[in-house]
């Protein structure tokens, strides 16, 4: 994935910087780079969000369709995550290059959201029909710390999603006819504010940093991704890279990951509220920078 290579001296410079709590771009160990969020930018989707984190650019769209529920869970809806590593992002994703990363990302998103997302909200008629959410994540540009950026964008898009209202159901023998409101504004929002976000903490030298850049990811001995709900609960943990950790370090990383995750969730929530309140005369920017 990385087109960046570093030599020993540059790595040493970065590692010393992390130890002094002053990183190459002037941030402290726990700082995030400025994030930029734009909501509702794809008109064909039921919910969408685009997030920029330095050079990483993520577009997430949520589409809603009607499906029949699984026999073992007749009262639950369905949700599926797809991650597409577009070859636009980096030449390394060309062909099948991005597949591995995409599979890992979508699987982990699914694992992280699973314990919290209540699928019974997506039920229409138990055992007969339910909503199915397709969460499509498109990586437009890749600039380090993909996991955090993707999870923030996915949460924002799900918060932005609204389901059309069902006006009535008519039973016709075995079949069920659903009458769906044709007014595009007659919708009910999907409650998604308690979903977790992912926090990557990269171990560099004897300490660890949040929001690692590509260069820092190369220097790092390993990376722990913690999925944190707004209340600070942990829903999934993943280790990236070939490093190993001391038990105490691991505990410390997970603790501070949860601490950062609470703040990250809070920041996202505030931004979403701000977006809702300014909904009246919002100007679309899309991809014009």
């Amino acid at each position, binding site marked *: 994935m990385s087109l960046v290579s570093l030599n020993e001296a540059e790595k040493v410079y970065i590692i010393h910087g992390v130890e002094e709590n002053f990183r190459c771009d002037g941030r402290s160990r726990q700082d995030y780079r400025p994030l930029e969020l734009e909501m509702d930018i794809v008109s064909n989707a039921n919910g969408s969000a685009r997030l920029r984190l330095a050079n990483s650019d993520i577009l997430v769209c949520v589409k809603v369709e009607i499906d029949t529920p699984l026999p073992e869970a007749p009262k639950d809806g369905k949700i599926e995550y797809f991650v597409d590593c577009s070859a636009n992002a980096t030449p390394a994703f060309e062909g099948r290059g991005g597949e591995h990363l995409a*599979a890992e990302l979508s699987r982990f998103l699914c694992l992280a959201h699973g314990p919290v997302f209540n699928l019974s909200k997506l039920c229409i008629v138990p055992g007969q029909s339910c909503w199915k959410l397709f969460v499509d994540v498109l990586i437009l540009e890749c600039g380090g710390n993909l996991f955090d950026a993707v999870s923030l964008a996915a949460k924002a898009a799900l918060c932005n999603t609204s389901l059309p209202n069902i006006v009535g159901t008519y039973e016709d023998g075995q079949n069920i006819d659903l009458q769906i409101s044709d007014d595009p504004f007659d919708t009910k929002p999907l409650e998604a504010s308690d979903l977790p976000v992912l926090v990557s903490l990269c171990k560099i030298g004897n300490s660890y940093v949040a929001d690692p850049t590509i260069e820092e990811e190369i220097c790092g001995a390993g990376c722990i991704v913690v999925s944190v709900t707004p209340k600070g609960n942990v829903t999934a943990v993943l280790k990236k890279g*070939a490093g190993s*950790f001391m038990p105490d370090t691991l505990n410390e990383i997970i603790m501070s990951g949860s601490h950062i995750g609470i703040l990250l969730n809070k920041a996202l929530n505030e931004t979403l509220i701000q977006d809702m309140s300014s909904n009246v005369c919002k100007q679309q920017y899309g991809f014009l920078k």
Partner: protein
Amino acid sequence: MPTNVYRVQGPEGTVPYQQYLIERNNNKLEEIATSLMKDVRCDGRDISAHRNLCIKTGIVTQAKGSAYLECGSTKLICSVFDPKEVPNKVEYAKTGELQCEFKFATFSCRQRRTYTRDSEERQLCNELRRALEPAICRGEFANFEIHINVLVLENDGSVLAAAITAAGLALMDGCIPMYDVIVATSLGIYKNKILVDPTYDEETLCSSTIDNGENRGTVMLAYMKNLQQITEFAQNGSMDVNMFPEYVQILTNHNCKLYKLVISAARKDVIEHFENENE
């Protein structure tokens, strides 16, 4: 395991009948849950007891190293093949690569699994690779790749932990240089109960969706005892952060016990090998 598109996979759109026995399954889970609250597990074990292990190395004669592991009803085979040069490799890699394959046999689970790899198998395969990478002296295999295959014959919970332990044994059996012996254990968390080495049913119970803020989920930890390093940590579910130190402590303690078992098995193998030679 190669996939064969010509093999008959049964008609499309069939559904295992067990899926319709929702009530029975739910009742069963509820039963387990209520007895757990009384600190009784369905198989009569103590809440903090590991299932009995059966370990045998060198069962695949064609492979360089192999191990068969039985942990309760969880049964799996792991085989390790000779390091080979990476084919079609352009760049020179300073450290060797691990190629892992994690496969559930089609009949290993309650639901029939397909021949093609699904996302769960891919994820387990990644986790297995990440757990083993730090333990192998990869610097000695510059530009080489080592193939590690795991085949699950019967899945009764804690497969990943069992697979990592078995892979560690198979690597040892295959004389691949390693920094330390690697073992893994998993925990199931249900409310305030911490279940060591959960069975399949207990895992299902632990990973059910939660409505209130109760702790639930599974934790898996792979550990190198002598170096005191955690090589892989995987968690899923919803848990209070402040509980993590306790989980990690319990898991490392169990891994230390497991470590003794594993090395005694390995030692016995070596002694047997020499005894056979002398005869």
